[in-house]
């Protein structure tokens, strides 16, 4: 198996909800350049846009002077997407279970659950000096 050289790309956007489409385009472009199949591209796009939405809305609370940094890295058949905000952070274990009967009709609260279901790995880090970084990983068949 030939190991693809490491590829690392970064996008920084202001915390405006409408920027989500730009973030998605950036991410999908990188995935397609690495020849990931359509189904994997959309799973990763679904998961990554969840994290970017959370960073814009919950982390940075739509403050356009705060930025969201998106890092996409490919190495050894694993794609990693890291989304960092400048917010107050949060405790992922305190997020209510979206499958509980009383939560089924709520409009929100399924993002992290969906990311966990679609990806191989999801980790949360507090960034020194404030902010949260959320990192997802998914393996793929490198060309």
């Amino acid at each position, binding site marked *: 198996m030939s190991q693809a050289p490491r590829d690392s790309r970064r996008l920084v956007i202001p915390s405006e*909800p409408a920027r*989500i489409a730009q973030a998605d385009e950036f991410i999908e472009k990188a995935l397609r350049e690495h020849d990931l199949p359509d189904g994997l591209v*959309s799973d990763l*796009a679904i998961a990554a846009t969840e994290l970017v939405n959370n960073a814009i809305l919950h982390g940075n609370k739509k403050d356009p002077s705060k930025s969201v940094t998106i890092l996409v890295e490919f190495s050894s058949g694993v794609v990693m997407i890291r989304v960092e905000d400048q917010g107050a952070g949060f405790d992922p274990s305190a997020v209510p279970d979206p499958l509980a009967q009383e939560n*089924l009709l709520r*409009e929100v609260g399924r993002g992290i659950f969906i990311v966990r279901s679609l990806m191989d790995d999801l980790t949360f880090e507090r960034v020194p000096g404030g902010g949260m970084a959320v990192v997802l990983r998914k393996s793929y068949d490198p060309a």
Partner: protein
Amino acid sequence: MQLTEREEGGVAILQPKGKIMGGPDATILREKIHDLVSDKKLRVVIDLSKVDWMNSNGLGILISGMTTLRDNQGDLKLANVTDKIQSLLTITKLITVFEAYDSVEEAVSSFGARA
């Protein structure tokens, strides 16, 4: 996401197109649902055939559309749920919440005779 609307047998059919990922998407669909409520078009089918993918934002839009219509004595049903969306509905257990049909025609006729 783009949104088109048509009517068939007294039922409003909304067809979103593209990706439903957040940003302005929720506002567009919410305003459309409220226009329908104001026009007393309370039987609504969402045709998902042209949706590439959606994240939890899209699911939230479908839920709020359905609850708003039900609160106003109407209902929202799904048609042409793609495999990708079907699997999201399954893992989130929302499959138990929505009424879904294999075609727009079936969804429309599930509403029964025109009120």
